[in-house]
C-alpha cells in the first residue's frame, strides 16, 4: 500500500518535468538529476518527519499528474546513490527494502550541537540527552526533536573529536554530556 502524499507538501518544479523520471544517459546530467532526487527524498522525509523509507511503499517514485514513474532498476540506482551520499542507511543491507533516513548527517549535527553548546555557555558543564532534543534552550536548532539514535551518533562523533564526554544516567534519556 503506497502512502498518500499530504497536500501540505510542496513539490519542487522538477518533479513535474517528465525527464526527471528517466535516469539520464549523459553522466553530467545524471549527476544533476540524482542530486535533485536526493534533495527531494531528504526534504520529503524531513518535513513530514518520516524516519524510514520503505521502497515499495514510497509514493515519490510515481507522478500520476504527468503519467511518469521510475522503474524498479531506476529506483535502486537512486537509493544506492542516496545511501552512498550519507543521507540514509539500509536497515537490511542484504535485501535493501528499508532505509533509515538521517534527517541530518551525524557530522553536521555534531558540529551544530557543539556550536550551540559553546554559544549557550555549556562548556565545562553538563546537560542531558533529553535536553538536547526537547529542552527549552534548543528552540529552532537543527537537532530539536531529533531521533535519539541520531543524537547518540552525533555525540559519538564529538567524543571521538574530544569535544565532549558521555556519562551514564538513570535512564538513557538522562545520560549526561559534558562539553569541553
Amino acid at each position, binding site marked *: 500500500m503506497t502512502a498518500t502524499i499530504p497536500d501540505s507538501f510542496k513539490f519542487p518544479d522538477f518533479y*513535474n518535468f*517528465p*525527464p526527471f*523520471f528517466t535516469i539520464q544517459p*549523459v553522466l553530467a*546530467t545524471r549527476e*544533476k*538529476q540524482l542530486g535533485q532526487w536526493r534533495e527531494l527524498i531528504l526534504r520529503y522525509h524531513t518535513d513530514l518527519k518520516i524516519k524510514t523509507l520503505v521502497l515499495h511503499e514510497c509514493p515519490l517514485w510515481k507522478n500520476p499528474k504527468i503519467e511518469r514513474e521510475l522503474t524498479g532498476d531506476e529506483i535502486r540506482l537512486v537509493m544506492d546513490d542516496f545511501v552512498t551520499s550519507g543521507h540514509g542507511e539500509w536497515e537490511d543491507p542484504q535485501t535493501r527494502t528499508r532505509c533509515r533516513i538521517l534527517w541530518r548527517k551525524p557530522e553536521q549535527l555534531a558540529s551544530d550541537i557543539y556550536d550551540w553548546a559553546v554559544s549557550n555557555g555549556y562548556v565545562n558543564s553538563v546537560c542531558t540527552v533529553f535536553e538536547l532534543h526537547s529542552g527549552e534552550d534548543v528552540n529552532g536548532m537543527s537537532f530539536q526533536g531529533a531521533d535519539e539514535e541520531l543524537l547518540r551518533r552525533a555525540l559519538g562523533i564529538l567524543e571521538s573529536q574530544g569535544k565532549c564526554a558521555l556519562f551514564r544516567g538513570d535512564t538513557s534519556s538522562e545520560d549526561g554530556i559534558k562539553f569541553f
Partner: protein
Amino acid sequence: FSRPLSPFYHPSSYPYLRSPPSSFRFYFFMKWALQSPPPASRIFNHNIYILPTQYPMSHRRRGVGAARAGAKAYTKKAEEMNAVSLARAMETVEKLEVKLEGFAKTHKHEIQHDPAFRAKFLEMCAPLGVDPLSAEKGFWGNMLGIGEFYYELSVKVAEVCLASRSRNGGIIRVSEVKDILTQRGTKFKFADSKNKSSYSEEDIVTSVKKLSKLGSGFRTVEVGKSMMIVSVPEELDDDHMKVMDLAEENRCGAYGVVTVKGVTAELGWDHDRAKRALELLLGKGMAWLDAVGAEKYYWFPSLWMQNSNEMVSS
C-alpha cells in the same frame, strides 16, 4: 664633360622663363607636371632629388623639385579640402555631443530609471559613436553612471546563467533570467525612492553584449520567438538551432519537446541526421531524455515552463 640636357632641364621645358605659355604648351606642361618622376635610368643614374645647387646657375631656381611642385600643389589642395570637410564634420559631431550631454543632464532621472527611455537614449547615442555604457571616468561615467549599472547587471546575469548551467546545459531564456532576478529581489545601486530597481529584458540583452566583448562565450541567440542567452563557448550549429526552434514553436506535440520522428517529419531530415542532432544536444546537457516504454522524447529545460506542461501521450 658637358652634361647633355634632358628635356626636364632644358629651359624650353620650363614655363617660368618664357612668355605666358600658349594653351598648347600649357597643356603639355600640365601633363608633365602631373606625371610621376621619370625612372632613374633616364637621369644619368643620378638620384632623382638633385639639389638645385648642383645645377648650372641658370637652373638654380628650378631643378627637379620645381617640376614636382606642380604635382605637390594639387595633392596639397586635395588634402586641404579633405581637412576642411573633416573639420566641419567633427565640428558637427561635437555640437551634437554637446546637445546630447545637455539632454542627458535634463533627463538624467528618466534614463536611470525608465528602461524604455533608456533604450531610446542609447539608440540616439549609437550613431554618434558615443558610448555612455563604458564604465569609465569622464563625463558619461560620472554623470549618468549607466556604465556601472550595466556592469552590475551583467555580473548578476552571469551568476544566474552559471548557476543554472547544470540544469539547462548553458542556454537559458532572457525572460527566465529576469524572473529569477526579480524573485531574488535583486537591488542595484540605482534603486529609486521606493527602493525598487527597474530593468527590462532589453537591458539584460545589452548587458550580455557587454559581457560578450570580454570574450567569455556569453551571447544571445534567437530560438523561435524567444531570446536566449548562451553561456557556454561551444558552437551551436544550424542543425541544433533548427531542432530547438521546433521545440520552441510547439511543432512536435507539446511545447519544449521533440522526438526523432517529429524532427524527420517537420524538417525533412533522414533518421540518422535527426538522431545525431538530438544526441548531441543531449550530450551538451541542453536536452534531457524522457523514455516512456519504447518511445524517446527529448525535452529542453530552457524552454520548459511549469504551466504549459501538456501531456505527451505514450
